[in-house]
């Protein structure tokens, strides 16, 4: 019936839009090389660390990305991650399996709790998760009276997971990160569950009418978010060789920036989970460049990341408005 004519301008715009994350990373690499040359580009001394931290933030971000897909925010992930790291460290005398399971359980419990409050009691996600953030942080502090728990020489396997490099080159966290991304990419694209997530994010009412159990989707998404947060915390525990109650503070905004740069819009319904790979790397490169400087306060990272997130959101809002205008003109849309 109708064919959409696409001009060259739109083509380029589209190309930039869908690959903004890769372009952003390339840009940062360019800046880094110019500013710091070989110090920056040295893989074994510098870039590998960027990959380490990107992966840990990325793992936590996978869960939040899922929440974004249904149009919700999870503000509790940092605190849950810290709690999981404490639980894992606390249970470290009992072996690797118990400690990891313990940490994951903490994440699971908080995730389910979030999901139920949000789905069944209709509390708004950001407020509910602010509440659980407080609770999780408090619990993390309680575990050892506000003090960290060192792993000492217990569960050395976790230190390998947190610090090790596959073949000496690829950080273990990155391997885990990529593995999970692959899993979720498949789930989101090829399973009924994954498509239901997108449907709920697109329009809850329609999703309900099409037979999707919206409440279950919401609960499951927040549960996954809690699990991913916990997993990230566990890996962090391995990296630091300790559980820290104050870990992951402020990670929420960084993660959101990674997600938005990665191409998942704020409103939900669309987005590819793999965008967070480069989104995360980009965000961590900001930190990296600031650290390399040595003179700039670490707080510059916060300011720049915040501004970047804001700009990215503004771009999204603007793009949405443009689409609205086109729809109206053509009379094509509800």
């Amino acid at each position: 019936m109708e064919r959409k004519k696409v001009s060259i301008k739109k083509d380029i715009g589209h190309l930039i839009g869908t690959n903004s994350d890769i372009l952003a990373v390339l840009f940062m690499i360019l800046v880094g090389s110019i500013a710091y040359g070989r110090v920056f580009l040295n893989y074994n001394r510098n870039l590998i660390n960027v990959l380490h931290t990107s992966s840990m933030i990325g793992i936590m971000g996978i869960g939040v990305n899922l929440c974004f897909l249904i149009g919700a925010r999870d503000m509790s992930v940092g605190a849950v991650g810290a709690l999981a790291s404490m639980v894992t460290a606390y249970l470290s005398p009992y072996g690797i399996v118990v400690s990891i399971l313990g940490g994951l359980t903490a994440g699971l419990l908080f995730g389910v709790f979030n999901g139920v409050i949000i789905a069944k009691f209709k509390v708004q996600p950001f407020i509910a998760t602010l509440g659980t953030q407080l609770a999780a942080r408090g619990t993390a502090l309680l575990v050892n009276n506000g003090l960290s728990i060192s792993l000492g020489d217990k569960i050395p396997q976790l230190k390998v997971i947190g610090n090790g490099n596959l073949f000496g080159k690829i950080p273990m966290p990155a391997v885990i990160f990529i593995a999970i991304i692959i899993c979720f990419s498949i789930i989101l694209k090829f399973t009924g569950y994954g498509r239901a997530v997108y449907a709920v994010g697109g329009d809850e009412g329609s999703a309900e009418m099409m037979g999707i159990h919206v409440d279950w989707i919401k609960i499951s998404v927040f549960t996954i978010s809690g699990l991913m947060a916990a997993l990230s915390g566990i890996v962090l525990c391995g990296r630091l060789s300790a559980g820290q109650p104050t870990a992951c503070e402020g990670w929420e905004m960084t993660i959101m920036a990674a997600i938005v740069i990665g191409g998942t819009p704020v409103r939900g319904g669309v987005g590819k989970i793999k965008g967070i790979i480069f989104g995360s790397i980009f965000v961590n490169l900001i930190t990296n460049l600031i650290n390399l400087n040595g003179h700039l306060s670490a707080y510059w990272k916060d300011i720049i990341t915040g501004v970047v997130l804001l700009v990215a959101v503004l771009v999204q809002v603007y793009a949405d408005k443009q689409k609205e205008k086109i729809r109206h003109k053509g009379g094509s849309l509800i």
Partner: protein
Amino acid sequence: MEPKIILEMKHISKTFPGVKALKNVQFTVHKGEVMAFMGENGAGKSTLIKIITGYYHKDPGEGIFYFDGTEVNPRNTEESQKLGISTIFQELNLSPFLSIAENIYLGNSPKKRGLIDWKTMNVNARKAMLDLGVDVDVTESLNIQSTAIQQMVSIARALARNTKLLIMDEATSSLDNSEVSILFDVVKKLKAKGISTIFVTHKMDEIYRICDRVTIFKDGEYVTCRPLSELPKFELISLMIGRDASELMNKHKQYVPEKQKTEIICKIEGIEKANRRLNGVNLEIHKGEVVGLAGLLGSGRTETAKVIFGDDINYEGELYMGNMAVKFKNPRGAIKKGCAFCSEDRKTEGIFPHMTVQDNLTMSNLGKISKFGLINSREQKRISKEYISKIDIKTPSLMAKIKNLSGGNQQKVILSRWLAMNPDLIILDEPTRGIDVGAKGEIENLIKQISDSGISVLYISSELDELVRGCDRIVILRDGKNVGELIHNEISADAIMNIIAEENQGSCYDK
């Protein structure tokens, strides 16, 4: 030969707290038939549809509900869909960001080794759309398609689930003529396959094109079911709108010629909107005049009102207040110029649910009854009491939360809000919706009073009798355009219906 019956409902009632939405109605559809389902607002159409689709349950203990030979009582939408009943709404209940193919098969996707088989899904989707006569890239997302195509996707989805009965609820409201033709071709194809369709609409021309019979409801009751080939348009409308056996029917407003000679306080010219809801509307309102705006649902009356009131700023054309051309940025601007607008949808556009009756009533007046921002609460109480007694608003107290009032009383509060403003022009959009007959009289008196005091009224209503009793002049709209105007002794319910029913799309001014 007796036609086979797909849907048979008899003695169905539905009661909600405080109101009986359906009173002992009946509804029967044959296999392979296209049944038109008509009735004005409050007739009970959507309530019955919701019972058929399992969203509501009929009142227990009464009535029979048979589908395809078996007695049924679907407990939710999923169950009715499993029976083979699918619905297509005006607001499409599809997922905007998923592809066409995916929308057709969501929940029903072809799988290969447990994972969704996109290739097969796309191939099947393309075939399904081609079967409906639509050539489109099924991998494109739904929201960029035209409404007609989106409707087709809805139908394709219904067919993919072995639908036996398709309900189209106002499905053509946003379609233009060519798109409607395409939709109707599809309905004919379905008919050939033995699939029945219930076609809920307000557009009469359309039902004569595509439907076999028509069932009419009014005020929650079954009126009749007749073959369209034996029912002329005029009779159809009068059955829908109803000839109340009330002597009010023949009452007329007193003809006051001076009213046309007073200054024009509001004028609009050539108003068009990109989404085709308005296609060139013109209107003039004189001081103290009561101008009625008639037309069936979807004719563009509310849209016109929103343009005048500054709520809709996406339009072409001119708007004048007094002699000045104006372009409002928001309703605040219109209010400043003396405009008031009582919306037809009080739930989403009228009430502040948790605020008190008093607050709701005086909300648009706050500026006037306050000094330096401090509200004069005595004045607030006085105004509230004044209108509570003027139009008999039933509320346990001034401080009751408005959400606890009945719908009719809520409507009265909202109406008072605008009347209390003493505007120059007040636009009333279905002001008596949900209000009982006794109270309607009070409101009509009120409207007469305010217009006598020099306030102009733009009166939008689907109740022709109201318009006849209350208006100095009536403008009739259809498909977003003026199609007629009646003044003084030309005004009668018959005359209005005539103009609405007229076949010609061109303007036909009766002067």
